[in-house]
């Protein structure tokens, strides 16, 4: 991490168990985090670290150092490819990748996640897509992502990707007619059969999650 980051947070951050306890309460499998011996095996295994964010090791150390803002606004949990090699290498058997996913989720709930992180943008677009169709409509997903910053940007991005798009269409991996969903029509893409059932499932899951959050918060 760079010096500017540490200097700003060090003044208020404390090495203690406060943030650790918060993570144990709110992040799935967070109770494993305290078992970290800082050996660095996960950092060595992680293919995402070269993207420039924090390694799992330094994220876990930042938790110990009480640097809450740095951890929750870090791009590192969003950089995670979920390859799981960190957990395989960990001599303390910590489910590292699961904790990173949990940290990303918790940061998102708190509104502290890095807004413009490309993987966050993709993840939210995927989720929106799945929620509406019950499965991914790839053509629609790609189009929405390309046009997320306005029409002119979108056209520009589409032209840049046109060679790839043509090849995908020829190979029948991309169906242009699925784009009908953008204007509320369905020419070819098949979502799940019973979308009302899917919505009930999701509503129930949200209610359970909210109930659990309320219960955890009341501890």
């Amino acid at each position, binding site marked *: *991490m760079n*010096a500017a980051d*540490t200097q700003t947070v*060090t003044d208020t*951050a*404390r*090495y*203690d*168990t406060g943030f*650790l*306890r918060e993570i144990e309460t709110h992040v799935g499998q967070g109770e494993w985090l*305290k*078992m*970290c*011996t*800082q050996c660095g095996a996960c950092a060595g295994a992680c293919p995402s670290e070269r993207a420039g964010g924090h390694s799992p*090791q*330094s994220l876990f*150390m*930042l938790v*110990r*150092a009480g640097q809450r803002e740095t951890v929750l606004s870090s791009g590192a949990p969003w950089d995670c490819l979920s390859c799981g090699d960190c957990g395989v290498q960990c001599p*303390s058997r910590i489910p590292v990748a699961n904790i990173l996913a949990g940290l990303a989720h918790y940061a998102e709930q708190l509104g502290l996640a890095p807004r413009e992180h490309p993987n966050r943008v993709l993840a939210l677009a995927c989720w929106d897509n799945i929620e509406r169709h019950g499965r991914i409509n790839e053509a629609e997903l790609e189009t929405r992502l390309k046009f997320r910053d306005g029409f002119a940007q979108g056209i520009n991005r589409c032209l840049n990707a046109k060679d790839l798009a043509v090849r995908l269409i020829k190979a029948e991996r991309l169906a242009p007619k699925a784009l009908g969903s953008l204007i509320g029509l369905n020419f070819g893409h098949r979502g799940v059969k019973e979308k009302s059932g899917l919505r009930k499932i999701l509503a129930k899951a949200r209610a359970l999650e909210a109930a659990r959050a309320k219960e955890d918060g009341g501890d």
Partner: protein
Amino acid sequence: MTHAHAPTSGADQAILVVGGGMSGMSAALATARAGQRTVIVEKSAVLGGAMARMRGCTPRRPPYTDVEDTGVAELISDIEAHELVTVYRNSSVSELTAPTGDAVTPGGFVAKITAGGGDDVVDRFGAVILATGWRPYDAHRLGYLGYNDHADVVTQMELEELAKAADFGPIKRPSDGRAVRSVLFLQCAGQRSLVEGELSGCANHCCMTAIKQAMYFKDSDPDIETTLLYSDLRTPGARGEQFLRAGLRKAVTFVRGRFDSVVSGPAGLIAGFTDEILDAPHRQTYDLVVLATGMHPNGIPVDTRNNDKDTDPEDISETVLDAVVGDATRQPPLADAYTAAALPGLPYATAHPGIFLAGASKQPMDLHRAMEDGIGAALKALQSLSRVAHGEGSERMDNKPS
């Protein structure tokens, strides 16, 4: 005597143990249980040595996760109950004469035991076990860690006394008697150091001891903040591994880093350190700072290379020392004060046949190893008696070049 070579329990077959700490008592109990008359000479008024001042010890038994009782009281009562063991308290060995010269005969030691306020006792022994123990490195040399200026900067040994005084209640800080809510353990304070005047060696036990002491706090109240600053943790073996993980499970905050300073602040002690994982300097306030200072042997010259017999005269007499160290210039130089009165390859032997070393007077070690070491020295002493009974010389290292 029915067998010509059987060990006897005559006057020359008794065993003298100098030091009534855990290694000395373990040695004495072992020799007494083997049927030999054994005499313990202890300089203080109580048996137990350093361990008698401690509240608990690192675990002996699987799953190696919890602080255990030291077992001092049990060992003392075993010693006191054994009819073959005589204990002289407040006493020292003021003279030890032994046959010397090339044609050395092991055994035949004559010791003058000077008891505080009593008459001297002269006794004959077949073998001598030196288990004079250790004392902490002088923390006054660690002024930069605030030891000289702040009552709340203590050594691990002093924390043991605070913990013992607390009697499983809240541990209170010395300056104002307030219950400690945050404690910082600084490992390798004045040891494993390249600074002149500090120890270059590792005292072996302090990482485990610090985890144990953090548990004193965590077990009484899990919300007490315990931080352990280390350069590298040395908790070897299954026992060490399990105990470290137990410390992690109890949410001791382990920080790999280097300490810089301890100064006083408005709400307590302000410790400055650098986190080596995040590569970031940090300052934080603590109620108590505990220094893991090194071990210093009792009764062994500080530096045999310089023939500097800087030793506590209460521990042991010059005559004994001469017998133990022998030709000091031939001793291999080891780290710090532990210049190895013990000889390489012969873990209990000294330059003098029939005199054996046990425990932390020889090498830094923890309670468990010191007790095993006492039993090992007892075995060598018994072996030595047996060899004498068989008319052989005892095991010794020939210090002369061949």
